[in-house]
C-alpha cells in the first residue's frame, strides 16, 4: 500500500487502541533485576521498564509511565512479546520492529506477531518515536545503561 493512502484506522488499529486503554503488565516489579527510564523531551513521554531475567531469559517484565496511545500500546505489546525470550532474541525483535515502524523493511513482519499491528506507523513518521521509546528503554535496562534514555 502507498503510504499516502494510509488511513487513521491503519494506525489506530483495534488492538492498539485496546492495549492503550487497558495496558498489560502496567505495574512496577518489586526488586527487578534490571530497570531503566526513558524520556522523550519533545513530547514529555516518560516510561519505566522493569525486567527480571532467569538464565538470560526474560522471566517477567512490566512498565509504568505517561504517554500517548501509541507509546502505551507499544509498551504493553512489547512486554507481552518479549516474555520468555533471550536478550539476543529481544534485540533481534527490536530491530525488526524498528524496520517495520519506519517502513524500511517488511520482511520480518510475519515473525512479529501482534507487533505487526504497528505497520501503519510508516505513514506517520512523526509518531515512530512514540512506539520505539519503550524499546530503547528496554534495551538500556538490559544493557544496564545507568542514565535516563532519551529519543533525542
Amino acid at each position: 500500500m502507498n503510504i499516502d493512502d494510509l488511513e487513521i484506522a491503519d494506525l489506530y488499529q483495534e488492538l492498539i487502541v485496546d492495549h492503550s486503554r487497558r495496558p498489560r503488565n502496567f505495574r512496577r516489579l518489586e526488586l527487578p533485576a534490571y530497570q531503566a527510564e526513558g524520556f522523550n523531551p519533545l513530547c514529555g513521554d516518560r516510561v519505566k521498564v522493569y525486567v527480571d531475567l532467569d538464565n538470560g531469559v526474560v522471566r517477567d517484565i512490566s512498565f509504568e509511565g505517561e504517554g500517548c496511545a501509541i507509546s502505551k500500546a507499544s509498551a504493553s505489546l512489547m512486554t507481552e512479546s518479549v516474555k520468555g525470550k533471550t536478550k539476543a532474541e529481544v534485540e533481534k525483535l527490536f530491530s525488526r520492529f524498528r524496520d517495520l515502524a519506519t517502513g524500511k523493511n517488511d520482511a520480518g513482519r510475519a515473525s512479529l506477531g501482534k507487533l505487526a499491528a504497528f505497520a501503519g506507523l510508516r505513514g506517520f513518521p512523526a509518531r515512530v518515536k512514540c512506539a520505539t521509546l519503550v524499546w530503547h528503554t528496554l534495551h538500556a535496562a538490559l544493557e544496564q545503561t545507568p542514565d535516563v534514555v532519551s529519543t533525542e
Partner: protein
Amino acid sequence: MSALRAVKSAEFDLLGVRRDFPALHQKVHGKPLVYLDNAATTQKPKAVIDALNQFYKLDYSNVHRAVHALSDRATKAYEAARTRVKEFINARSQREIIFVRGATEAINLVMNSFARPRVKAGSEILISALEHHSNIVPWQLLAEQTGARLVVAPINDAGELILEEFEQRLSPQTALVAVAHISNALGTVMPVNEIVQRAHARNIPVLIDGAQAVAHRRVNVSELDCDFYAFSGHKIFGPTGIGVLYGREDLLDEMPPYQAGGDMIRSVTFEKTTFNELPYKFEAGTPHIAGVIGLGAALDYFSQVGIDRAAAHEAELLAYGTELLTAIPGLRLIGTAREKVSVLSFVLEGIHPHDVGTVLDHDGIAVRTGHHCAQPVMDRFGVPATTRASLAFYNSKAELDALANGIRRVQKLFAL
C-alpha cells in the same frame, strides 16, 4: 464553503483576506487545510511573498555601505521598514527600533546588555507563571551567572495573573520585570498597563514579550510606557528570522553593544573602536535585509486589513469556538481568562494530545500538541500537554466546526 460566505460582512471581508494567503488553499491528506497553529507561526500573505521576491529579484544589495544604486535602494527599503515598525508600535523614534532575529534574541539582548550590568547577587528578576521558555531561560542563565534570583508571580485557575501577588513580589531588589503581553499556551491577555504602572511606581524597568500580541492587539509602546518590547516577524505574517526589540532611547544609549562586528562601529583602530549611533550600535554584521523588508510589507498588509477589524472577527471566532468546544463532553478548556485572544487550549479525558493531533491532522486540521514551550504552565494545570487551536483573522467559523467534528471523531475512535 457556503458557511464561509455567510460570515462575510461589510466590516471584515473574510473571503477576501483568505484569498491573500496562498497556503490556505490546499488539501492536506485529501482534506481542505484548516490551519489552526497561528500561535506557533502565521501564514504569509501574497504581499509579503511578493515583497521578498521583488527585493531578491531586483533590489538586492547590502545596506549602509556602497554608493551604487542597488545599495541605495536596499538601504532605503530597509530604513523605510524601520520607520514602518516605529509607526506600527508608536515608538517615538526610529532609533528605538532594533532589528534582531526574533523575540528570543530581543530578550537575550536585554538580558545581556541591560540586565547583566545592573544585577548583583540578591537582585531579582520578576516574571509571571505564564511565560514562554524564551522569557524564563535567559533569566535563569543570568541568575546562575550573577547570583540573582528569578521570582515568579502566580496565576489563578483561569490562567490569569494575580495582580496583587505580582505587586507583592515587587521589591527593592527587583532589577527588572519581564512578562508576556499575551500567553502563548493559553491566550491570556496580561494586564500590562497595570504591570508597568506598578513597577514604574517603584522605579523598576519593564520588558514586555509581545510575540503573541502584535498579531491580535494594537500595540502602543508610548502609551504603554514599557521600557522594552520584543516581538517576532513570523508571528505577524512576516518572514522568519526577523524580529524587533523596541527600547527606550535613553536606556539603549547607555547600554553596551550586544554583538560586535561591522555596521555597529563608527571608527576602528587596533587601539580603540567608537561605536555607531542608535539603532546601529545593536545591529552588528549584515542584517536580515530581506526579512526586514518582508516585515515592513507584513505590517503594511496587516494595517490594511485593519487590526481592530481583525481583532473583532477573532473575538467572534473565540466566542463561537469556546461555545462549540465546551459543549463536547470530556473536553476541558485550559485557560479561561476573561481577557484572552483566540486560543483554544484543551485536554480530552483519557486521550493524549498527540493522538488528538495525529487524528486531526488526518482531517487536514493543523493544531499544536505538547507543552507549547511553556512547561511550567502545563505543570500549573496538572497536565503534561494540551492540544492547542490558535486562530488568526483568516480563520472561519466553518473551520471551528471542522475542529469540533474532528474532536468528536477522535473521541469515537478511542471509545471502547
